[in-house]
């Protein structure tokens, strides 16, 4: 039990000192995954034997003294990453029988680092959702309050880290799918600059926006994972050729004199009072650490949701055309001809939200509508990105809330797509601009029914996330900023009540 709340760094030290073996660590977490993990529905696939075999191999490496910082540590991966021999479903019926014949780049990098795959986590179907309720395998429950959503689309990964089912996990973020569940589940999550982590083997949703990133308890752990995940990969044509960097290099630096940009639009009406209170307190803490705050403006941010719901569905309608029942995945049992086989396979294989987005994407790309929707959205995307360029002339990082409210209840928004889309109001612009963004725990609010924003806070309240947005390739600086905050506060080490 002593390793329940250990960071990656602490686990690596235990393994290196031979106080514990990788098999023991893996067994410890698998037991949690197969117990509490089932209650939360956080995982889609678990394979104890396969995980333990990897742990035994890691123990051999550890015994020889060739271990790295991640060797022998179990990680959960979002079920969007292909992992050879593992069923990889993207939480869709259409891939419910798909066993990946190869490894995604991210998976290969973790394997190379000697890490253990602890299982594949639940998610919104094809990463389309903000609550993990569109999964074919059912919703994930928030470990802080099982009546609430964990956020999405990487809801299983966020819940798994929050409930200490694994020390850390991976996710992907197209419009907020790492940061939003990190905020609602009370863990740290980082979406890197577009192009820093290879998308090879990561099932595509909206290719110009999709980016993989880590979930962990601390900024320092995120840095250690980034060191394994980032880097050029020729198999992804948008993977950037850059010198490798150590994302942990700046962690100890003082942030005295750091200029924090606070966008007026982030603090306008729409943010719940309990979220505002926690974010304001976090900003005050940064001032105590010697940071300055400056007001910045992102005037076009309000358009990011409509722009996103043109661009992302358009790209999705193209990417998801590959699921046709011919080469892999589900095929409808009965059909009359080829066209009927395609139409029935896709009608039966995709869930309602995925179909909705494919239809929207097909429409905005169809003859006669391209200029009015797709091209218009691309022009607005430029304006949104330029707002950030202007803002970063005045500040080093931008801060604000990750989400307008804390975790909402299961079923609360499931019937209203537009309300669900608006829960990503603070995160989407970052993807459109291609910037790095992260969310770290900064306090608790109270969103439970009938209690409003009543204070004082108690441990069963819902977590609040602070969003930190950096300029292009400033991940190391953002991690430094978050790490310094985590040296002065302990929100990030709080655990949901009753999970031990």
């Amino acid at each position: 039990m002593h390793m329940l709340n250990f960071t990656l760094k602490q686990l690596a030290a235990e393994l290196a000192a031979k106080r514990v073996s990788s098999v023991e660590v893996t067994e410890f977490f698998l037991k949690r995954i197969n117990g509490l993990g089932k209650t939360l529905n956080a995982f889609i696939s678990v394979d104890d034997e396969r995980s333990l075999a990897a742990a035994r191999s890691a123990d051999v490496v550890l015994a020889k003294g060739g271990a790295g910082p991640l060797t022998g540590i179990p990680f959960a991966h979002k079920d969007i990453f292909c992992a050879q021999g593992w069923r990889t479903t993207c939480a869709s019926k259409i891939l419910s029988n798909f066993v990946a014949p190869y490894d995604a780049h991210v998976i290969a990098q973790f394997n190379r680092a000697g890490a253990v795959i602890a299982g594949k986590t639940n998610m919104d179907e094809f990463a389309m959702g903000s609550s993990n309720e569109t999964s074919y395998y059912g919703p994930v429950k928030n470990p802080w309050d099982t009546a609430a959503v964990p956020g999405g689309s990487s809801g299983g990964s966020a819940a798994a880290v929050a409930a200490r089912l694994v020390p850390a996990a991976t996710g992907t973020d197209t419009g907020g799918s790492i940061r939003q569940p990190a905020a609602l589940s009370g863990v740290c999550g980082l979406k890197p600059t577009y192009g820093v982590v290879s998308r090879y083997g990561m099932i595509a949703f909206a290719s110009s926006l999709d980016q993989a990133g880590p979930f962990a308890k601390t900024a320092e752990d995120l840095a250690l994972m980034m060191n394994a995940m980032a880097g050029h990969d020729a198999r992804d044509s948008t993977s950037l050729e850059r010198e490798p960097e150590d994302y942990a290099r700046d962690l100890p630096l003082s942030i005295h004199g750091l200029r924090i940009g606070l966008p007026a639009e982030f603090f306008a009406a729409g943010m719940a009072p309990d979220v505002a209170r926690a974010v304001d307190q976090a900003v005050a803490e940064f001032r105590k650490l010697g940071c300055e705050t400056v007001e910045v403006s992102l005037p076009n941010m309000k358009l990011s949701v409509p722009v996103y719901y043109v661009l992302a569905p358009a790209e999705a309608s193209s990417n998801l055309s590959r699921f046709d029942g011919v080469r892999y995945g589900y095929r409808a049992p009965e059909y009359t001809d080829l066209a009927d086989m395609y139409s029935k396979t896709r009608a039966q294989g995709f869930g309602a939200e995925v179909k909705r987005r494919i239809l929207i994407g097909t429409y905005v790309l169809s003859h006669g509508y391209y200029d009015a929707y797709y091209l218009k959205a691309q022009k607005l995307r430029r304006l949104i990105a330029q707002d950030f360029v202007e803002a970063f002339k005045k500040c080093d990082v931008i801060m604000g809330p990750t989400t307008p409210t804390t975790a909402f209840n299961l079923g609360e928004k499931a019937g209203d797509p537009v309300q669900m889309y608006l829960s990503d109001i603070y995160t989407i612009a970052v993807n459109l601009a291609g910037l790095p963004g992260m969310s770290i725990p900064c306090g608790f609010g109270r969103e439970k029914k009938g209690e409003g924003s009543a204070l004082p806070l108690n441990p069963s309240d819902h977590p609040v996330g602070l969003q930190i947005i950096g300029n292009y390739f400033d991940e190391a600086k953002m991690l430094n900023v978050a790490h310094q905050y985590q040296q002065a506060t302990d929100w990030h080490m709080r655990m949901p009540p009753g999970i031990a």
Partner: protein
Amino acid sequence: MALTLDDVKRIAQLARIEVAPAEAGEVLSRMTGIFRLIEEMQAVDTTGVAPMSHAQDVMQRLRDDVVTESDRHVLFQSIAPQVEADLYLVPKVIE
């Protein structure tokens, strides 16, 4: 712009997703709500703005024209719904 049931049928056909007549009304009403949100874009003048298709304006890399992949069709076809003589089987297209 108001979407109609005919639009839903046409898009469903283009997208190769069967929409049963009983579901079409529901699909139409959800899509109409989403397009109401999307229409907010039209409020901003974008004359003279260059479209942004990608976050990083980088050139596509070129590589030497050499074989880099090995033949793994047996593995890849092992997960296909229907295969015969190394070929994927689909319903007959030509009578």
